[in-house]
């Protein structure tokens, strides 16, 4: 009953989620640090833009990304002409779309983690002669490990679970853009409920195990280092 396609689809989902997590962590780290430290007037604007993907229907987001990346738009045309890269209906399109779609899930936990840090601790690091860069990596991040883990896991899970955006910019090309969530949709459509059950069951149990480990880790971390204030 194990469909050889199944491994492919799940691997594709995880590959997409892993790449998205790495890219987003690199983007979100400076952004969330900036948002946590600034008193600038543009902070609410940046926060609103960052949070948009949470409230926007995935089809809307997907539509705009599709428009922006297609060869009819300046961006898509540029990549096609200069690098001969096609940015829609392939895996690259999924990665780009996922980075937009999951951005708030990486930024928000990190930002609130940074905001929860004792301000004096950060200042003490500056007074000890450390740059902002050193302070982020040696003081701030090690003291918000639960927030970092939460950000990574939620972003990963959210990317695995995305559906609408993927369908819009990637379609459902087996081995290229057909991720698990899309596969389930198609199985239900052709009324193959037994396969849909297997896929869904795997997704459900993995999500639960992952979340359980996050909460267990956070509880252990807080016992060891005390709650961050």
């Amino acid at each position: 009953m194990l469909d050889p396609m199944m491994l492919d689809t799940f691997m594709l989902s995880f590959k997409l989620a892993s790449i998205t997590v790495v890219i987003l962590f690199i983007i979100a780290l400076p952004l969330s640090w900036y948002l946590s430290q600034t008193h600038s007037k543009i902070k609410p604007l940046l926060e609103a833009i960052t949070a948009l993907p949470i409230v926007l229907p995935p089809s809307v987001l997907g539509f705009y990304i599709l428009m922006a990346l297609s060869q009819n738009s300046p961006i898509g045309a540029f990549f096609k002409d200069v690098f001969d890269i096609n940015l829609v209906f392939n895996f690259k399109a999924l990665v780009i779309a996922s980075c937009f779609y999951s951005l708030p899930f990486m930024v928000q936990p990190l930002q609130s983690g940074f905001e929860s840090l004792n301000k004096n601790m950060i200042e003490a690091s500056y007074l000890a002669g450390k740059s902002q860069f050193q302070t982020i990596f040696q003081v701030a991040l090690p003291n918000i490990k639960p927030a970092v883990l939460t950000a990574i896991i939620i972003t990963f899970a959210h990317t695995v679970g995305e559906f609408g955006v993927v369908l819009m910019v990637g379609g459902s090309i087996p081995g290229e853009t057909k991720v698990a969530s899309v596969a389930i949709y198609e199985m239900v459509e052709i009324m193959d409920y037994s396969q849909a059950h297997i896929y869904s069951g795997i997704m459900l149990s993995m999500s639960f195990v992952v979340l359980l480990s996050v909460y267990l880790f956070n509880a252990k971390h807080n016992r060891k280092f005390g709650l961050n204030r």
Partner: protein
Amino acid sequence: MIKINITKELHGAKGSMILEIDLHIKEGEFIALSGPSGSGKTTLLRILGGLEKAQGDISVANSIWLKGSKTISPQKRGIGFMFQEDALFNNMTLLENLLFANKEIDLAQRLLEITELQELQHSYPKNLSGGQKQRVSLCRALMRQPKILLLDEPLSALDPKMRSKLQKMIVTLHHEFSLTTIMVSHEPSEIYKLATRVIVLSEGKIIQDDSPKEVLLKTTGSQKFSFMGELLELQKVDTIFIAVIAIGQQLVEIVLSKEEVSSLQVGDKVSIATKAFNPTLSKIT
């Protein structure tokens, strides 16, 4: 050594006010910064540390820290700073906290020895008491061998015994490291023990700048003894009243007449003074 001439607008609980400080500090001085809360003491310290912006001039020895609104970063000032509450790095052991500031293991061990923390050097801050944490903070502040040490009421949360222990350590370190120290403090006995000069702020301005003796031992008229205290309780006993007054950590009882009591209320700040008597002093064993 330190020349300060700054202004900054502050927005406090009582509305906004202007912090306006013109101050010269000589090398080796131990300055106590006193005054009611909200008078700008902490802000002044933070401006010196480069943690807050201000307008004006600050120069230290031959380097300029602030000119107009151009300022150099805290990283470049090379000062020791100790916060009111601990600001230790929770992810590092006590020793790692010190070495983070400067990788000189010998200096770290010497500081830990002076502050009696050697045995705890591999513990994490979470497992330390308040007094131990503040001692670590003090050590960490000195790891970069600063010329200037800024202390923002570092002992206010400690019990009297630990407080007096840390006061001694601060004095020892002040001399041993030839520091110029500025410490925010409210406690008269602490100021008297540690400081060589007291600066009293009120509403952002310096209202007193003198030796601890002049500032703290000022009495009015011909009074020989004068204490500030808080009225804790008024008891009626037959025809007289007994007032219980807290002076620092001490409680005293004073007999009052009905007339004297009429203007007093529990919770009042009171001054207790006396003139014509000879106090006797004996050592408590």
